[in-house]
Structures are given as structure tokens and as C-alpha cells.
């Protein structure tokens, strides 16, 4: 048996063997290492970017929650009844309460967006002192000493540094703040030293916030300090018992969780891509090690005869795998950090997906993350070395020492049963539901399809090549190529495995993205049926019923529909859904319904988006309660419509129902049909001015085509990063496959020498190798296309619905697939020719005598 010491510390001879290998055959090792590095880099950078964005968000939330032990938040952006403030205060579990109005607002002409908080500084002083303003350069000594604690003036505002920067305001300025469709001027009194850098926040008095921004009688948040006698759980219990339906117990951790859940599926998808690169790396390690073991058979046999144990040989290969994995992982970690740094500093943490927006903190690398990713890379490489190691150990040394054992698999039938079994398992896995919102079984199904496809590739190769071998008159080079491939299917499989894996995944991604984009495009077409869209947008304009009537009566307008969108929280653990208030039954513009109630039930109907239906498990006709009003509002699901825009879900309610429920008739968006749709550019200019005159602020106006372009642009941008990363992974994969092929060709120098002896020209050998490459390419392409299509169906019908809660129709991009196929075939042919030129250049005589 090998001693433990020997296992742990490779003796100099092993190092020599490994380094010798590296010097002789650097390329296949380099590509194996690179592929592992790419996988690690991808996974690690996604992890770092997300951790940095999450930390920044979490810090900001915690920062602004101060030392509160609990928070009550409005379930909708309508807030909750302000009397709750006194009721919560009177709970014996509560020591103090700070009431807060929270709105999104726009500062001055700059259009700078801030979080506007209305606070009672006296109450905030004990719970969230970070929200207290500091008066700037006050001449009054007493005011500056005391005033920093309690400036109560109701028409002054304090800005955070980020808000100062984005609004260009200075202390003492009169600043117009727009929020909730209202505007009011505030004097900038000073800054908010407690607010963390990067957070755009403005703080005003709570009474001013209620009065000037149309929030009388309501609050958005209560920051609560627990009394010393109460425990956190008794506080939670007491609160839950008394909270009305339109208020919810919230807290910093809840907010962080909500945000994380929004980007989780996206992150998992990116990390799965990283895993794909890793798996490809594993394949490359496998083929590189197989070849090198084969090449070193005689070395190994000699060592065995000299008294080395079987297991030591196997360990040698595992050690080599460890070295490869370590090199790949370390390189990957460095690349991943650099990539994350570039993304965060240049592009921002958005990553193109829109999920990581907001400010980011410094990149925080934890030891545990480093170890996990290092472990992944090393495990992959060791795993790839396992089978070659076992094969090397199993060799009969007496036989192997004499001659390099060539392909001993002539005529052996490939076993197809495990491959088929894997595909059947994949089918079963694809039918299983998501685990905790993540399509774990879907990804396992993808892995099973890949494994099955790779397993079946030799079988497929035989199936495709056998008919070719019966064809005659194609030339001797072609026949030799076909027969070579038929004689050594498993050697072909080593090269083919990499091709199938990367081509299959690329095809799958391409089909999935094309399906997604086509579905989004069709959806946009159906949902953007008005000519012009006006939104309160940046300037927070809102139109009251009188203004709505005036706008509807403008001469250019054939029909104007007014709508409004608020946030509404159906589950405290989920991000809020959008509640859009618009005409439905009487509307000119149909919702893209995919399911409708058979008949109208009594009560208030709502139409929910497909993601909302999936997230909250809602069916047609189901009765639910919306958290509007202290007792909630019972509604029923009258329809489900497809929506690709709001991953968190959306609900549509009849405009009239909303007005009756809330008493709010103001709306902030308009969908306009023009009298003359041809006149759109001139009409929109006229309308812009007229609506400005009516509403008092410049409206944001866009036409349907513009919105569609923006939406598709966003879509492409969010997938650009995916495409880019995928392309890099596949490129490395393909180059690795090429290197494998070249190495295989390198082992056949003797064969070429023989062929030269019996009269083959160099050109014929190269031609034969080109055919081999082409045929391998065709087989790989066929397997890749088949498995890619299968995987794309798993992505379209299982993984995407489970992670993003939306469905789509398959749309195959034939031209793109044709292009990929052609590129693959040309590349494989060229690689073979390139490899062949080198091999055929060797001296024929020396080659035949290659024996030592």
C-alpha cells in the first residue's frame, strides 16, 4: 500500500513526471486550466457583484432603520390610518414609536430622484437619529446647538450628501420638491450626517409631508422601539394581533430578503452558466488526462515493474488533476475579482439585468467564498482525472512496457442503455416542481440530458458513420477517416464530449433567448395599442378629475384613458406587486389575457398577471383580499394576463372600483388614441404643451414604437451579458476541443508514418484528418443540436416558468442555428488540418521507429 506520506507529498519523481508532461503537451492542459478558470471566474464574479450590491442595500436599509426593533409598513403605497401610531404606542410591549411618511420624490429642476421622508424629529431622535438633519452655518448659536436635534420648522428640508450632489442644491436654497403628484417649495436647511454615502434622501417634517403631498390622515411606516420588559417575540405577537389589513410588520431583514428574492433566479441562472463552464473544464481535464495516461503507458508500466503500487499510479493522476484544478481555480478567482471590479466600477452593479441597481459598496471577499470556489475548481479537475487514473492503474504492465497499447476497442459495440436511462430520468426530472422558487430539478434535468447525450454520442457516431463506410468512391482518405472513427469510438468520444456539451448548451441558450424575445415582442405589440403614452414619470405629475376631463376634451385626442400604478404588498416576504388602476371592461385596449373567468361573479374583479398568479398560486375566480383599507378589500380573480415587464407580479383593477374604494380619483398616466394617428409627431408636440398648461408640469410623453424599442433594448441589454459570458465559455470549450483533437492526432504519429511508407502523400494524410475533423464535427453537431433542442425545451417550459414565473412559446432562430452549425463544421475541419500539418511533417522513418 502507498504510505500516507507518499499520498500527501508527491515525491520528486512525480513532480518530474507532471512537469515533463506539461512541457511536452502544454496546450491541452492550458485549455483545461482556462476552462476551469472561466467557470470559477464567472461564478465568483456573479457572487461578488451580488454580495456587494446586497451588502450596500442591506447597509442602507439597516442604516435608515436606526435602532428600531420592529417596523410597521403600509401594505400599499396608500399607507395606513395614522391613528395606528397612537394605538401601537399604547401597547405595553412598545417603548417608543416614530411615525414616518415615505415617498419617492423629485428635487427641483434637476429631476434628481430621492427617497423623501417625513418625520417627527422628536420621535426619530430616540429611534432613528440618523434621519435628523444638521442645520448649516446658523448664525444663531443657540439654534445651531439645539436646532441640530430638533428643527421642527415645517417648510425646511434636509438633504443627504448624495441628494445634494444630484440636485445641485445648496443650503439656503428654495427647493421645489415633487411627490405624489404635488409640488411644494422647501428651504434647504442643512444635511443629513447620519445617512450613508450614496443614499439619496431628503427629510422634511411629517406634518408638512402630510399636508403638502396629499397624505393627510395616513402614515407609511412606524419605527418601533421595544420596551425593556417585552421580548422580540412578544412584541411581534402583540403587533400582529392588532395590525389592520393595510399595515404589515416589516423590518430591515424582511426588506433585504425581499430584494434578494427578486434577483435570486437571475443570479442562479448566471451561476448555472458558470457551472456549465466548469463542467466543460472537467471534460477537458478528462480528455487531457486520458490522452496523457495513454501517452505515458510505457512510463507507467516501467514504474509498475520497478515495484510501484497500482494505487500510486492512480494517485499520480489525481495529484495532477489537483494541480490543474488549483491552477485553474486561482486563475479563476483572480479573473473573477477583476471582472467584478470592472463591472462594479465601470458598468455599475446592474449587470444588465436591472436587478442589481442602486449603489454598491466595496467588494467584500470572504474566506469562505474563496474556499468554496477553490473547492469547486479542484473537485472538477480531480473528478475529471478519476477515470483516466483508474484505467492507467488497471493496465497490465508486462504488456504495456513492450508497446504503447493502441486502441483495443475495435468492433466493440457502444453501450446505449445508460444513455437512454439518463434521458428518461431527465424527462422525469423536468416534470418535478420548483424547490423553494428555484428550478433545481430543471437544472438536474439539463445535466441529465447532457450526460445522456454525451453517453450516446459514440452510439450516434456509429449510427451515422456505418452507412458512410459502405459508400465507395469517396476516395481513400475519406474511407480511412470513417474507419478510423468507427474503430475507436471512445477516443472520438473524448473529443466529442466537449463539443456536445458546449454546442448543446449554446443551441439551448440561443433557442431560449429567441423564444423569450419573440414572446416579449408579441406581447409588447399587443399591450401597446394606444398611440401616445403620458406618464407622471420623472416629474410626478398627477391629473385630478377636472384635469382629466380637460385633457380628454383636447381636439387631437380621440380617446384618453387614465391610469395609475401603486405598490401593494400581498406577502411581507415578497417584493410588492404593482396595482395598476385603469379602465378594463370599457377599455379600448385589451389586456393580453391568457385565462378569463367564465362569468362575472359579484364583487370587485381584478385581473392578475401571470407572474402574480404563479407567485401567489392564484386561480381564475379565486377570492382574495387586497390590503386596501383597515379591513382589507375582498376581490376575485376575473382574468390572468401575460406580463413580461414585472417579474414581481402585477394586478389590474377597474378605475371606478379604485375610486370608490379609496376616494382617490387622481391618475398619473394617460393612454391616448389620436384623431389622426398619422399626425403623431406634430400631435404629440401640441399635446405636450396643452397638457403642460393643464397640469402645470411638463409631461413625459412617449409613443408606442418608442416604448417598444426601449423595452426590447432593455431586453437585449440584459441578455447581452448572458450571451457574452456564454460565448467566452463556448470559445474556450471549442479551443479546448481543438487542442484535444490535436493531441490525439499527435499520438498517431506512428500511424501516419506507416501510411507514408505505403505511399500516402502528406496531402492525403491531411485530407484524411480534415475528413475526420469534419465527420467528428457533424456527429458533434448532430448530438449538440438534438440535446440543445431538448435542453431549450427544459429552459423554456421548466426553468424559466419556475424561476421567472412566466411562460413563452418556442421560437427557433433557424438562420442563427445555421450560422453556428457552419462555423462549427468549418472550425473542426480547420483544426484537424492544422493538427494534421504538424503531425504529417514528422519524419516518417523516425515515426515508425518510435519505440523506446
Amino acid at each position: 500500500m502507498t504510505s500516507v506520506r507518499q499520498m500527501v507529498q508527491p515525491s520528486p519523481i512525480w513532480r518530474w513526471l507532471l512537469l515533463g508532461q506539461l512541457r511536452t503537451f502544454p496546450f491541452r492542459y492550458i485549455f483545461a486550466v482556462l476552462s476551469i478558470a472561466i467557470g470559477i471566474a464567472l461564478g465568483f464574479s456573479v457572487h461578488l457583484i451580488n454580495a456587494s450590491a446586497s451588502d450596500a442595500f442591506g447597509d442602507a436599509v439597516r442604516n435608515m432603520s436606526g435602532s428600531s426593533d420592529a417596523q410597521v409598513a403600509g401594505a400599499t403605497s396608500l399607507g395606513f390610518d395614522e391613528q395606528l401610531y397612537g394605538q401601537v404606542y399604547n401597547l405595553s410591549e412598545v417603548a417608543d414609536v416614530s411615525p414616518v411618511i415615505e415617498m419617492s420624490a423629485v428635487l427641483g429642476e434637476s429631476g434628481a430622484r430621492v427617497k423623501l421622508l417625513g418625520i417627527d424629529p422628536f420621535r426619530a431622535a430616540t429611534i432613528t437619529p440618523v434621519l435628523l438633519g444638521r442645520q448649516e452655518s446658523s448664525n444663531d448659536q443657540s439654534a445651531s446647538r439645539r436646532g441640530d436635534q430638533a428643527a421642527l420648522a415645517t417648510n425646511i428640508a434636509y438633504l443627504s450628501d448624495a441628494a445634494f450632489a444630484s440636485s445641485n442644491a445648496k443650503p439656503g436654497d428654495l427647493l421645489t420638491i415633487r411627490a405624489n403628484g404635488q409640488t411644494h417649495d422647501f428651504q434647504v436647511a442643512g444635511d443629513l450626517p447620519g445617512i450613508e454615502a450614496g443614499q439619496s434622501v431628503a427629510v422634511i417634517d411629517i406634518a408638512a409631508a402630510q399636508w403638502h403631498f396629499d397624505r393627510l390622515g395616513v402614515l407609511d411606516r412606524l419605527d418601533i422601539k421595544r420596551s425593556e420588559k417585552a421580548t422580540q417575540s412578544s412584541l411581534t405577537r402583540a403587533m400582529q394581533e392588532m395590525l389592520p389589513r393595510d399595515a404589515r410588520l416589516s423590518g430591515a431583514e424582511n426588506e433585504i430578503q425581499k430584494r434578494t428574492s427578486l434577483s435570486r433566479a437571475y443570479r442562479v441562472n448566471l451561476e448555472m452558466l458558470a457551472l456549465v463552464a466548469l463542467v466543460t473544464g472537467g471534460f477537458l481535464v478528462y480528455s487531457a488526462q486520458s490522452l496523457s495516461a495513454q501517452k505515458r503507458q510505457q512510463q507507467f508500466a516501467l514504474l509498475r515493474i520497478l515495484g510501484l503500487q497500482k494505487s500510486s499510479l492512480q494517485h499520480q493522476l489525481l495529484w495532477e488533476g489537483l494541480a490543474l484544478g488549483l491552477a485553474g481555480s486561482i486563475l479563476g478567482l483572480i479573473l473573477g475579482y477583476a471582472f467584478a471590479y470592472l463591472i462594479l466600477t465601470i458598468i455599475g452593479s446592474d449587470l444588465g439585468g436591472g436587478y442589481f441597481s442602486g449603489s454598491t459598496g466595496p467588494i467584500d471577499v470572504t474566506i469562505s467564498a474563496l474556499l468554496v470556489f477553490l473547492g469547486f475548481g479542484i473537485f472538477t479537475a480531480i473528478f475529471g482525472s478519476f477515470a483516466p487514473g483508474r484505467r492507467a492503474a488497471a493496465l497490465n504492465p508486462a504488456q504495456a512496457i513492450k508497446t504503447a497499447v493502441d486502441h483495443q476497442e475495435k468492433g466493440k459495440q457502444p453501450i446505449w442503455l445508460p444513455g437512454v436511462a439518463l434521458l428518461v430520468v431527465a424527462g422525469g426530472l423536468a416534470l418535478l416542481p420548483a424547490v423553494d422558487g428555484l428550478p433545481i430539478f430543471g437544472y438536474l434535468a439539463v445535466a441529465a440530458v447532457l450526460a445522456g447525450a454525451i453517453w450516446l454520442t459514440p452510439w450516434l457516431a456509429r449510427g451515422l458513420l456505418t452507412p458512410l463506410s459502405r459508400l465507395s468512391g469517396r476516395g481513400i482518405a475519406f474511407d480511412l477517416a470513417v474507419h478510423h472513427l468507427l474503430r475507436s469510438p471512445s477516443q472520438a468520444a473524448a473529443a466529442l464530449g466537449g463539443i456536445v456539451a458546449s454546442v448543446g448548451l449554446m443551441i439551448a441558450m440561443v433557442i431560449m433567448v429567441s423564444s423569450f424575445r419573440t414572446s416579449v415582442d408579441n406581447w409588447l405589440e399587443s399591450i401597446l395599442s394606444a398611440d401616445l403614452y403620458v406618464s407622471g414619470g420623472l416629474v410626478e405629475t398627477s391629473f385630478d378629475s377636472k384635469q382629466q376631463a380637460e385633457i380628454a376634451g383636447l381636439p387631437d385626442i380621440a380617446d384618453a384613458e387614465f391610469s395609475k400604478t401603486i405598490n401593494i404588498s400581498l406577502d411581507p416576504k415578497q417584493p410588492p406587486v404593482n396595482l395598476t388602476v385603469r379602465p378594463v371592461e370599457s377599455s379600448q385596449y385589451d389586456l393580453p389575457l391568457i385565462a378569463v373567468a367564465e362569468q362575472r361573479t359579484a364583487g370587485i374583479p381584478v385581473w392578475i398577471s401571470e407572474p402574480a398568479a404563479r407567485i401567489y398560486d392564484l386561480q381564475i375566480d379565486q377570492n382574495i383580499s387586497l390590503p386596501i383599507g383597515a379591513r382589507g378589500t375582498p376581490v376575485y380573480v376575473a382574468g390572468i394576463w401575460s406580463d413580461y415587464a414585472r417579474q414581481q407580479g402585477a394586478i389590474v383593477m377597474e378605475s371606478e372600483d379604485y375610486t370608490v374604494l379609496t376616494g382617490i380619483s387622481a391618475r398619473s398616466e394617460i393612454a391616448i388614441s389620436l384623431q389622426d394617428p398619422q399626425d403623431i409627431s406634430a400631435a404629440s408636440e401640441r399635446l405636450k404643451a396643452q397638457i403642460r398648461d393643464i397640469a402645470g408640469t411638463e409631461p413625459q410623453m412617449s409613443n408606442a414604437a418608442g416604448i417598444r424599442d426601449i423595452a426590447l433594448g432593455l431586453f437585449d441589454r440584459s441578455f447581452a451579458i448572458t450571451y457574452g459570458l456564454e460565448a467566452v465559455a463556448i470559445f474556450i470549450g471549442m479551443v479546448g476541443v481543438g487542442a484535444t483533437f490535436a493531441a490525439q492526432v499527435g499520438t498517431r504519429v506512428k500511424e501516419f508514418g506507416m501510411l507514408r511508407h505505403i505511399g500516402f502523400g502528406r496531402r492525403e494524410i491531411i485530407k484524411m484528418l480534415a475528413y475526420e475533423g469534419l465527420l467528428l464535427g457533424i456527429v458533434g453537431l448532430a448530438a449538440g443540436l438534438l440535446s440543445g433542442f431538448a435542453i431549450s425545451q427544459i429552459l423554456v417550459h421548466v426553468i424559466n416558468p419556475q424561476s421567472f414565473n412566466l411562460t413563452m412559446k418556442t421560437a427557433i432562430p433557424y438562420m442563427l442555428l445555421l450560422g453556428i452549425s457552419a462555423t462549427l463544421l468549418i472550425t473542426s475541419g480547420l483544426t484537424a488540418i492544422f493538427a494534421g500539418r504538424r503531425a504529417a511533417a514528422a519524419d516518417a522513418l523516425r515515426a515508425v521507429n518510435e519505440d523506446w
Partner: protein
Amino acid sequence: MYRLVAIAIFLAAVLSAGAWAYSDRPDYPEVTSGKKIVFPEDHGSHDAFRTEWWYLTGWLETESGDPLGFQITFFRTRPDIETNNPSKFAPNQIIFAHAALSDPKTGKLVHDERIGRAGFDIIEASSGDADVKLLDWQLTRTIEGVFDSKVAGKDFALDLQMKPSQPPMLNGDNGYSRKGPKASQASYYYSVPQLVVSGSVISGGRAMKVTGRAWLDREWSSDVLPENAVGWDWTGLNFDDGSALMAFQVRGADGQAVYAGGSFRDAEGKQTVFSPNDVRFRPQRIWKSPETGAAYPVEAEFIIRMGGQWKSYGLKPMFDAQELTGPFTPTYWEGAVTTSGGRGYLEMTGYAGKIAL
């Protein structure tokens, strides 16, 4: 007394710091002579006036016979801000309170404070009778006429029932109390001396039953101190024989009195009201606060002319370090003092710079 005028003015100044743009301003009633003080209504809040307070000071004795000094002050101000804000959070009334406990055993004064805008049944000063609620602190007059106050601060708590043993003493001209040379510089002002105290105190983590004597000062007004005033010195003394003395001087920058006044009521209930020329304050020993650097005449005497006779009331502190300072509390000295045949409180403001105006 109008010691708290300063706090009122400070708050009013802060509150109105940015209110210049509005024309809807509070219409503060003027303090005029001849208004009759009526009980129990005038124990309650007078919301229209700019400032008002309920000021309790007194000496306590634990069951083991150890003395303690306490003060509990509830203070209401109506800030000079726009009055047309319909929000229930509009800071139309601010309630502020501080409380302190002086313990000669530790030589330390512990104190705490509360502040908030009135509303939502959490913070209220009711009219009709004394009933002030400020978060977890409160002062109410029970149906038996007992002033009941509960305040719990950092490191101490007071739960005291103060039962009047005498009718209220109307200061100045039947409760119309001049503060300066101008007739408008005045307040409505009455005191309830010789309150019999029982209750409990938590100090140093120990709960103790206490008894004692206390003094209630009630004052409401709309106008400010004379412009040239930097501070004042005030005392309220309960004598063992049942008589009571209140005296004050408003001090200018030169240390000289700008205005002065006071009342003496003997055991039989006969009251003498002092004119400005009848009251003098003479410092005797200075103590310098290590915390703020302010120098207070912690030992002093009030020299009063009554019936043509000058009489000196020497005041000695329970201990020196009875200075208060806090986020919302101006820096001043408010301490338990003894005098020959009586005990009470001495208040000195404006020694740490001019009291905020």
C-alpha cells in the same frame, strides 16, 4: 416662575425658524390685569397662550430618614408656525418635560427629559383641569384634588402624590405677575406651596417609600422677557410653620436686577406681595461646574423688605452639583436648598451664557 420662559422662547424660535413664508400665524392672547383665576379650570392648559408650565419642586424623606430633592416640570409651548396645516401631526402644541432627583449621599443630580408634539392621545395637555401626558410621563390632578405625577427616567423614577394643604397663592396682582418694566411683560402666575407628598422613588436601582413637602408653580403667558435680561434667580420656600416665600430677580448682563418681585404668605394665610424694590439677591459662595464651566452662586441670600423691615433669607444647597443640561434642556442650576426654618428650591439661569432667546 418664568424661568421656563427661556425654554419656551428657545423652542418657539426653533419652531418658527422657517415659517416666514406663511401669513397664518398664531394669535397669542395678551396677559392683562384683572382676569380672575378660576379653579379647577386654571389648573388645566391654556392652549392659546404661547407658553405654560406646571413646575413641581420639593424635599423628600425616605423611610430611613435620608433627604432627597426632586423637580418635575411639564411645559407647553404653542410655536409661532402657520396655523392652517390640517395635519394632525402639525406641531401646534409642543409638550416638554424634565425631571431631576438630587441625592446628597451621592452628591449627584440625576435627570432626564421628554419632548413631543401634542396629539394622538400620547402627548396631550388637557384644559379644564391639570392633566398632562407626555409619552410615559404624566401629571394629573385627581378628583380628590391631589397632584399625581409619574416620571421614569434613566437611573431614576418618581411616583408622587402631592396633596394641597393650603389654597393656591396668587402671585402679583391676583395672579397677574409683572416680569419687566413693560406692562405686557407679564404672566398669569400662581403657586401651590406646602403640598404634602407621599409616594415612591426609585434611585440607584432601589425602590423607596418617601414623604415630603413640595411646591407647585403654575404660569402661562405670551410675551417675552425684557430684552436686556440674561437670566434670573428664583426661590420658592416652604417654612416649617406653614408659611411660604416666593422671590425672584431678573438679571441683566451687568449682574444687576432688571426686575424683581415675589410673595410671602404667613401661616394664617395673610399674603404680602413685593414690589421690584423690595427684593434683592446677594451671592455668597460660587461653585464652578466642572462640566460646563458655568459659575453659580450656590450659596446666596434673598433680602426682602416686608412691612418696612428688611429680612435676609440665607440659602444653602443640599450639595453643590445640582446643575442641569440636556439636549432640550438649557444649562441652568436648579437645586434643593435649606434656609433657617424652611426648605425649598433655588433656580439660577443665565450663568452659562445668555439664556437662549
